[in-house]
């Protein structure tokens, strides 16, 4: 038999063969009083029938077909297998097949009927057992899915924690302050103020998983103020957030990642001055937050945009399909990154936050 049809026999095992023998024994023992045949003669018939039926069921179960449900095909296989079984009995016992179906038709019919009866009971039991196994594996799979989601949430949380205060940012900013203290004390004070403002918002977020748009905007503003001094005249920024949107729930550290990207990958590589524009609006129950820059524009290259991919992942973990991050080219140059999410009140946003006791 060519290998490509071998799959039809998958599931055949010594265990199944052993069960078949047991069923044949039980069947023979339970009907032997009814027949005139000897036990061994009947057992031979039962074995022939049960093995053909078992083979037929196995093949029907493996058959790739879409005409009927698998269970239906298996019950049909019982009937077909019983008929084949009785033919086999005839051949094994060296009977004349033509005579079998004329003179001995009564006996043949009874035997076939018994075969079908036992076959159906066994098949039903098999189908039930399989269904139970399938339910069990569904349960296992659901459990695994739950674990996967939990892991994803944990990872998202870890990412938030790690994204907090980048040492480069901190030390470089401090180096700037160090210089300004001597060169321009007033500017140094301003920079320190902004650094403190930034750290005040950024540091507590290691323990929190939800934030408000207002907080995130404040943090971005402090960050941008710092970079405005650090980058000299190369950076300018503007912010347009209606004050009633400031209390809206917004996931932490996403806005700052977008602003960081705008500076690092947008404005920094290209050498003339650039502008970062932050805006937020409310439309059809959705909160739309944009970060636009006038920088280099997106250079898609393998490995690029990992921070953005993290935002996408976190959004889909937190909000499912109702939230998303889109990137578009800004006119005349640069990128617009947009986060869109369904508005939720802070009270219902506890998915990621630690349990309140």
């Amino acid at each position: 038999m060519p290998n490509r049809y071998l799959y039809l026999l998958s599931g055949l095992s010594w265990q199944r063969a052993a069960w078949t023998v047991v069923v044949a024994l039980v069947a023979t023992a339970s009907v032997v009083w009814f027949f005139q045949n000897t036990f061994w003669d009947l057992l031979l018939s039962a074995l022939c029938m049960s093995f053909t039926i078992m083979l037929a069921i196995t093949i029907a179960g493996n058959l790739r077909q879409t005409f009927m449900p698998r269970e239906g095909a298996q019950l049909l296989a019982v009937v077909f297998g019983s008929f084949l079984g009785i033919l086999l009995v005839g051949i094994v016992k060296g009977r004349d097949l033509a005579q079998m179906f004329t003179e001995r038709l009564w006996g043949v019919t009874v035997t076939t009927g018994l075969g079908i009866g036992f076959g159906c009971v066994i098949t039903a039991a098999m189908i039930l057992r399989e269904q139970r196994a399938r339910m069990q594996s569904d349960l296992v799979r659901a459990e695994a899915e739950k674990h996967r989601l939990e892991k994803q949430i944990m990872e998202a949380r870890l990412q938030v924690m790690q994204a907090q205060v980048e040492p480069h940012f901190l030390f470089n900013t401090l180096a700037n302050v160090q210089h300004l203290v001597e060169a321009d004390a007033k500017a140094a004070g301003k920079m320190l103020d902004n650094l403190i403002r930034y750290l005040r918002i950024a540091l507590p977020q290691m323990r929190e998983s939800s934030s408000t748009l207002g907080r995130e905007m404040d943090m971005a503003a402090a960050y941008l103020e710092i970079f405005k001094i650090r980058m000299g005249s190369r950076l300018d920024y503007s912010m347009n957030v209606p004050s009633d949107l400031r209390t809206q729930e917004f996931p932490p550290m996403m806005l700052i990642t977008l602003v960081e990207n705008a500076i690092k990958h947008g404005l920094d590589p290209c050498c003339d001055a650039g502008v970062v524009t932050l805006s937020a609006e409310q439309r059809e129950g959705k909160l739309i937050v944009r970060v636009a820059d006038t920088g280099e524009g997106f250079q898609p290259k393998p490995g690029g945009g990992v921070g953005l991919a993290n935002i996408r992942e976190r959004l889909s973990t937190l909000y499912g399909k109702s939230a998303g991050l889109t990137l578009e080219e800004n006119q005349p140059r640069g990128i617009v990154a947009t986060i869109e999410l369904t508005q939720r009140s802070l009270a219902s946003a506890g998915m990621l936050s630690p349990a309140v006791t």
Partner: protein
Amino acid sequence: MPTALIADDEPLLRAQLKARLANLWPGLRIVHEAENGRQVVEFFDLEDEKPDVCFLDIHMPGLTGLEAARRISKRSRVVFVTAFDQYAVDAFEQGAIDYVLKPFDETRLKETVTRLQERLAAPVTVESDSRGDPLDAILARLAAQMAPVGRQYLQWIKASVGSTVRMIAIDDICYFQSDEKYTRVVMEDGEVLIRKPIKELLDELDPDKFWQIHRSTLVNTREIAGVVRGLRDQADLKLKSRPEVLTVSRAYTHLFKQM
């Protein structure tokens, strides 16, 4: 009079280093200030008088300080300036490479200056023999470490949608299919055309995320709902979020054996 070059992408930090050096080493003349590694290399290629010392910030846009140092290390003495690079600092310690940390520690900077002065006073020829290759090896290793680790795959596809250009996250893409000159990028809720051919995409996409199932088709593995035997030796692939059925050609049916 010894000369020096300062490279940092932040103007205030250049000014700071310049001021500190003026204080600690009045005899040092700063001949050039660079904003990135490229400007450093350009300066070395164009100017005849090479600075004796180069203070290079490690993190600069474009060419990093490490890469710039590799290109000029034979022609000048390099001091790295960094805010926070633990593994780089470890390597510098082991390789006896000069470095200073930002924000500057006055005594530490002074040590560096003293060491530089001593070395500059020694005959240059002897020194330049003893350094050279080991330094290059350390820098090459560090530069490789600073580059993103492992094989990196495409995360976004750039495509025109109407009048705007959008970035499409590859996770949103159900499949790519070549269509004469273009490649169709099919998502759950629409499709766009890009010019990048399937062959190129195949090289840049994560092979675990996208499978080639036909000469002209790449399918997102997350989108595969099932595969059924089709005509001849082909197979039909059903998608989770699209109604159409994709053809798996014979050469690729092995992907779905036992699925």
